């Protein structure tokens, strides 16, 4: 049997609306993945040490406040600095289409906006795993 996919699900920044994050976490569990939810109000340093500790295959981040560009920039810088290149980075939330090319450039692998289907997220994860 193949190893279970390990997902760290998180809320980055001050936005506390975590229903979406919890919902996706539950769905990915149903899809047979192992999911750890970090809780809210995470900062980039915390998230990076959590994905290292958990040896995560996937980092899921939910941001609904619109602060994603600045927060993701600092998170991705930290991830690069720690030379983490085998963790799939997936962002969800209120992410305008116009921001998506730049997020991809920063190294974000997948972006899912409101109304996305959890099954599509699971499929994306399976198809794009880096390890």
């Amino acid at each position, binding site marked *: 049997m193949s190893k279970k996919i390990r997902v760290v699900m998180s*809320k980055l*920044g*001050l*936005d*506390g*609306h*975590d*229903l979406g994050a*919890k*919902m996706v976490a*539950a769905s990915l569990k149903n899809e047979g993945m192992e999911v750890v*939810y970090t*809780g*809210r*109000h995470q*900062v980039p340093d915390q998230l990076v040490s959590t994905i290292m500790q958990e040896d995560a295959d996937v980092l899921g981040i939910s941001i609904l*406040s*619109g*602060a994603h*560009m*600045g*927060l993701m920039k600092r998170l991705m810088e930290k991830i690069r600095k720690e030379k983490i290149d085998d963790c799939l980075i997936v962002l969800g939330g*209120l992410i*305008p*289409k*116009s921001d998506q090319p730049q997020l991809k450039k920063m190294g974000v692998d997948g972006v899912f*906006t*409101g*109304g996305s289907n*959890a099954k599509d997220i699971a499929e994306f994860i399976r198809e794009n795993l880096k390890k």
Partner: protein
Amino acid sequence: MKGSGGSDKINQIKEVGKKWAEKYNVAKSPKYYMAGGIEIKPVYTPADVKDTDFLSEIGYPGEYPFTRGPYAEMYRHRPWKFSLFSGFGSAEDTRKRWKFLWETGQKAFSVLPDLPTHMGLDSDDPLAEDEVGRVGLAIDTVRDMEILFKGLPMEEASFSCNEETLASIIVAFAIVAMENLGMDPTKLTGAISNDPLAGVHKGTTVINLEGGVRLAVDLIEYSVRNLPRYYPINLKAIDLSEGGANPIQEVAYTFSNAICYIEEGLKRGLSIDDFAPKLSIFFASNCQILEEAAKYRAARRMWAKMMRERFGANSPKSWTLKFTADANPNNMQAEEPELNLVRAACGAIASVLGGAQGTPHPCYDEVFSIPSQKSHSLALGTLQILAEEINITRTVDPLGGSYYVESLTNEIEKSVLKEMKKIEEIGGAIKAVESGYVSKEILNWFLEEQKAVETGKKVIVRKNKYRVKDAENPWDYLEIYQQDLKAADRQVKRIKDVRRMRDAQKWEKAMRNLRRAAEGSENMMPFIIEAARAEASIGEITGVLKDVFGVFQDPKMT
């Protein structure tokens, strides 16, 4: 209804009903339930409300148990209060939108603070980077409140604010801003959330719950003595609903939270009739119009009984529940967002039929961004149509006497009491929240409902049924609010300027006194006001509270 026919008559009704059900094969048809588990039957008759005594359970509006409304004639002659929220960028930006709403007929100012202000972080705090003025207004010091209030009739207009944990600080800023602008702060009108127990569901609970509840009750006690027209706590039922709760959970946990604050107030020697009239609730109305109207009728009756029977209140003002109700933003969808105008209107109709005193109203595009002026105008116009054009307020509680609505009102009351009992068994609201019980119950319900959406059992138009092929992408044509980065810079500069220019000695003394009060058992409010006068910032004041009470940690979810 009791007294409206003898038991022979009821038996006859039941008998005919049984035959009717057999004739039309009703027993085999699918069953439906209200969110929270109450079955909705195919038809209701006098037999469903045979034990409901009209005078003691329903009665007249403005009379105990207030099932039909807190006032005799409710909104027959003038509309309830429209209270759309706005808040973005800096005080200057928010003022402009307030002015627009004022001129368009909303005689109340409601403000949403930004996330750093909710969390007690100054605009120049590294953790606030990217978040200043983004989803609300940045309020760092009394200076921002002065800019907001300047030239506005704050002695007459009500000022409402969404702030769960740090309400005391916001009110202190408002009091001092009014003083500085030559207005009389004892005339402050309006309401503030002040409900850290509910803030847990929105993620805005900043300090440990014991400290949070003390701070909340400090503001209540201060208002009883000094702010006769102000509602110092507007319990955030809506935070539970937005966090996924069903209507039964919403009412049950909110009432349990209310009990917690009330008991803390009583412990201080306040009499129930001193402060019960100052409590109010901020509910969320789902689109299910009749179920929600029944929810409000049940809540009002339960509140009256609780105040009179459990807490021994003597004043009718203590018995009446007054509430705000916003159409639940969770009902708003991303697919063809203009349809949210209809969903929000359904929620608002529920609020009006349920007898709300104030209605904010979600904007159809708030799924995507801070609402534009146009969408604010559509939201306010919707409420104005309901108030002025469709005559649902011409008679009070038009649903009263409906076999269905009366039966549902009774059933909701029973279900809520059952859930409240569980909270009491756990040891009260603080324990139930801290242990994660409340969050888990809500999440379980929400996930169940999500499953129903996924399987199509719960229909959401355009999302899981009646989808439009090649539908336009709202992101392509909606006007999306762009954060004004200059406003954020201006805000950061302003807080730095205040720190540099203020009287350092006065500030130090105020902060020392505040810490001493927090460490002791005095009411902290006068000390927070002193700190506001000394131009202390929300981050500095919160810093002291965090030090003394500890930082709130989310309950563990397994």
